[in-house]
């Protein structure tokens, strides 16, 4: 069974966090941090398995991860999961994302985080792998997106939301974030990466 699926970047910033066991938010962040430090130490040319140890679930659990350019995909699974199977699954997941977002890049995970979660939900459900057939996953995701479109989607909402946001002054931030072209002037870069 899969205990958690984590995606974070080379700086340890979470990009996708999915725990299938309840942990309080602080513990979640702590786990992410610790796992990040564990995998960061490892070269790309050493094996992709790690004992989960005390982090999650104890000795029966192991971490299986893959590193893509700037992102780490980490699955935490127990002994009923095949290590090599999960590695393939990660690859499949990434390829699926690639198909859904047409040449996926790290930013897709930020911009479409909800969509990424919906895709993940088609792959893994309730700690178990639901579907591994990539075409099926893509088809179902697209089906849901079509449905969303036919409902008018959230597209009506953002306009409204943005205006709400404006009204209540969230866009004071443009002093820092220029929404016009989304160039962000970072006051302290280390905080953002």
């Amino acid at each position, binding site marked *: 069974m899969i205990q958690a699926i984590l995606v974070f*970047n080379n700086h340890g910033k*979470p990009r996708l*966090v999915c725990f299938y066991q*309840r942990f*309080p938010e602080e513990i979640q962040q702590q786990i992410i941090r610790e796992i990040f430090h564990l995998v960061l130490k490892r*070269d790309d*040319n*050493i*094996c*992709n*398995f790690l*004992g989960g140890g005390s982090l999650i679930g104890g000795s029966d659990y192991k971490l299986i991860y893959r590193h*893509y*350019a700037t*992102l780490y995909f980490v699955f935490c699974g127990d002994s*009923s999961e*095949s*290590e*090599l199977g999960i590695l393939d699954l990660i690859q499949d997941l*990434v*390829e699926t994302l690639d198909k859904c977002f047409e040449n996926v*890049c*790290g*930013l897709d995970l*930020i*911009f*479409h*985080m*909800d969509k990424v979660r919906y895709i993940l939900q088609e792959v893994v*459900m*309730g*700690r*178990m*792998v*639901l*579907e*591994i057939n990539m075409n*099926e996953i893509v088809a*179902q995701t697209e*089906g*849901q997106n079509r*449905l969303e479109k036919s*409902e*008018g989607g*959230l597209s*009506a*909402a*953002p306009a409204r*939301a943005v205006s*709400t*946001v404006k009204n*209540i002054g*969230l866009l004071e931030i443009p002093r820092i*974030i220029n929404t016009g072209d*989304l160039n*962000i002037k*970072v*006051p302290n870069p280390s905080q*953002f*990466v």
Partner: protein
Amino acid sequence: MNLGCVEVDGRGPTGTVPGAAGPFLLWMPAKYISQCIDEIKQELKQDNIAVKANAVCKLTYLQMLGYDISWAAFNIIEVMSASKFTFKRIGYLAASQCFHEGTDVIMLTTNQIRKDLSSPSQYDTGVALTGLSCFVTPDLARDLANDIMTLMSHTKPYIRKKAVLIMYKVFLKYPESLRPAFPRLKEKLEDPDPGVQSAAVNVICELARRNPKNYLSLAPLFFKLMTSSTNNWVLIKIIKLFGALTPLEPRLGKKLIEPLTNLIHSTSAMSLLYECVNTVIAVLISLSSGMPNHSASIQLCVQKLRILIEDSDQNLKYLGLLAMSKILRTHPKSVQAHKDLVLQCLDDKDESIRLRALDLLYGMVSKKNLMEIVKKLMTHVDKAEGTTYRDELLTKIIDICSQSNYQHITNFEWYISILVELTRLEGTRHGHLIAAQMLDVAIRVKAIRRFAVSQMSALLDSAHLVASSTQRSGICEVLYAAAWICGEFSEHLQEPQQTLEAMLRPKVTTLPGHIQAVYVQNVVKLYAAILQQKERAADTQAAQEVTQLLVERLPQFVQSADLEAQERASCILQLVKHVQKLQARDVPVAEEVSALFAGELNPVAPKAQKKVPVPEGLDLDAWINEPLSDSESEDEKPKAIFHDEEPRHAKQRPPEADEQELARRREARKQEQANNPFYIKSSPSPQKRYQDAPGVDHIPVVQIDLSVPLKVPGKCVPGGTGDGGFRPGMPMSDQYVKLEEERRHRQRLEKDKRKRKKRERERRGARRHSSLHTESDEDITPAQRVDIVTEEMPENALPSDEDDKDPNDPYRALDIDLDKPLADSEKLPVQKHRDAETSKSPERQDIAVVEKKSKKPKRKEKKHKEKEREKKKKEAEKSSVTPPGRVVSAGARSRGGSAARAAGSVHTRGADLDFWLSTAPPAATPAPEEPGVNAAVAAPKEEREEPRGEEQDAAEDGEQDLEKKPSKHKKKKHKKDKEERSKDQKKSKKRAPPREGEAEPVENGALDEEPLPPMSSYSLLAENSYIKMTYDVQGSLQKDSQVTVSVVLENQSSSFLKNMELNVLDSLNARLARPEGSSVHDGVPVPFQLPPGISNEAQFVFTIQSIVTAQKLKGTLSFIAKNDEGSTHEKLDFKLHFTCTSYLVTTPCYSDAFAKLLESGDLSMSSVKVDGISMSFQNLLAKICFHHHFSVVERVDSCASMYSRSIQGHHVCLLVKKGEKSVSVDGKCSDSTLLSNVLEEMKETLAKC
């Protein structure tokens, strides 16, 4: 795909405005987020659902960043219940992120989720299922289990697979749902959609992993899936599952080896290969050592693993080593051949691979290579950069050396020097480990003490090195051992005075307290030894000097911060001062001082204390003194202690007792301890308790494992006792390695000489077993005569304590027997209108509450309660004799549930499993032993257990004879047999094929009063010298006019049977389903060939028009039998008998529905009565269930209602009543012909009871 290449977090893609406000948050510094949360709160207050959804979406991002969003739970529920999928999905996503069992608003979602589950849109349902899988609680599981179960048969595979998968969560939270839902879950294993099938495999594998024994009966099904599926993911799951099942059923393992080996050879997927190897290993372990001819399989595994380990892919290397260590446990020899590879992996750049290799080394050492391996490890210790890895190396070295009572160590001096070398490691956390080893070796290996003491004194001398840099790091722990060893075995010290001074250095006070305490204690031991030495030499001057030294130095310990050290020091200081006084008067004191430490300490086994039996009449829980009342404040006591203690420290008290007094007290204490059962005595047995001489003769001594007692006579072993040949001080363990090699070489020469002599002698004498030339492990004699003192255990030690299972294990609740048929009380709670069940709902809810309170209700208890309830009900009802219909409906209302259980399906499965396991042993395994053994075992069993009619037994005997010795007159006999059989078939077509190895069905139900006879649904179809056919007819509810005939073909000859073809003469009513394009006269080919002694099962589908009458079809099996002499074309005729009961399908029916069915009144009625029945009612019902595919709806005493359904949807209801010696069966059915035929068949069955 360029994942991440563009990920420049500070900069977004120009020109795009993200859909939701979420992404902004990721770029936002923490201080803005609190502001942002305020604004989200504003948005949540708005009525517009889109705004709300957007806000919830943002919260989801925030949650990922580590902010608690549970405060918005109610808003999330609002968004979940939006009508639009777009919003609903956002709501469920947020809920799946932040809801958990403690979320109190979660109970508000039940109805919303139920609505979504039954939504016409598959995505609504899907999103609800996904969400639910994350936050399902016991309440939700109970309330929604039935809805989800319905979804398992949804038309859309998308829903089906999700529903199947979520069932696992439901089972976990609501274990009562497992049994009712399991049949359907099992069906899904054969779902046409691969996704659904995979989901079902997932769930069942996960269930089975936790409680494998309940799922053994599914093995045949999984076996079929394994041999037919091409989905690697499913295959991996199944193969892993088999790995968990084989330990429970070794026969399964035998059956698995061949297909697994085939997979290993054929698959290109590494993941599958790896899992196959793993399971083969598990199989081999389960088969234990009794199977000699599995070495080929082990070799194959080891070979494949070697390929993995040699691969450049680090992942494969890692897994290869991991699997190798599993083989190592049972077949160390085959792994040891690859030592080179493992040692090579120790140099790998990847730490996790090095660690795995270390694990392997543990099992690879022998007397021969221990030194070499440890030497290699020591170089790694020097090289290792990370402390974790170095610590791991250190523990491994110690583990390797100390394993199984130092089995592999031939030279303990070498080991001690290794330990000493290890103390020079900086920053290790494992000082205490080294210390424990030093102590253990020094105490238990008597021969090494002299050497150990010299090493330890050197260590004490250089204590500053050990203790300085790494004060708190733990390595100073070794000083604890060093001090103790030097003190305890001070008689071996060369320079006791020097060691004494080393132990009294001022620097010592910086050591941790407990080490100081040991120092103090052992200083006195040393002191006693020196005194004795000096007095013997009549050197009073020196003796007084030593005393003076102690008097001067001990006060530094009196000021120690550690209480223990302080107390001991002040005690001893007084003692020494007293001695000083005596010495001044020229009184010899050495004897008395050393008497303090007379006797020897023996090692005590780690569990010894726990195993001291509690003597009779002792109540450990009783108060020794009644506790004082609470009113006495507790803070007074400590105060009193302090008052007492402070003055004591301030002024030095005069010695309280003189030496004699001390001795007297000691004696008294010894006496007391001797009588105290809880004191671990220093002598091993009570008889020796009073032999208080300090002798060591009674210490139990075991010789180190020396299977070949080859002693080197009169040989002075170099590097023996003492440190001759070494520089004084720290010896290098490497020197030992060299010396040891030389020693062994000499030894070998010596032995060769002797062998030659021996051989000459042997040549003269009778021929004995040849001796091996290679140097085996046992040939190496230890350098010293090594005695290992055993650890002591108290007398009458209790037997070893079992390890308790974790009572909090959530999976224990799922340890449920799934083969037992469902009782009618076991069903999923269905939502109903309240008024419809006014009379029962409170009761029902009571149960629910009880169940909820005691989180994991014990099934037995529940059953018991139900039984009681049932009893009460009965008492209320028994006043009037009720007509049959009434009883049923009344019973139906008393839904507390009957205790009746139809045992039928247990037996189908149990027996089928055995049958499956006993047939078709794979060609690789030794074929002859299995069927023979099984048949032999089965035969007496059946005779004993099956209370059948004589006629039948006779027939069976005949069959067995026939099987055991295929007689020359087989044709004739076969005919006779067939006649008998056809007679039998009329009565009961279900008979056990004689060669089945039927074991007692496993059942853990508490309510079954007596064991049920084994039953099998397979009956003989036809048989000749070549082949035997048994068959079973099964209807299926899905296809309303089809039945499947499963025919087991068993090759009884020594010929190879092929081109088998089965053909029947179709009747108007029944025809064989043939492949498309073939005419009615063509046969259906059997899809396999049969090597000698093998059996296999083929299935044929028949289409039936009318099912109300029984019928027979004539048919022929044609085949080609090929043996050495050539091939012949053979035929075997048979008659397929379709009884009416074979059209019935076991269908559970709940008492409510049953009552309604009867009340509806459109059923025709018929009845039969059979006299002279002695079988118990329980078994009778089981028989009816099994042979006639009924299920028990309700049972009250000796009356039971039963239900079944035909494949065409006819309801068949029965009321079975048992009288004194008779049984009456009343039936109601929507078709009167069917009913009368079924009852007729049933009468035949019952007549045999």
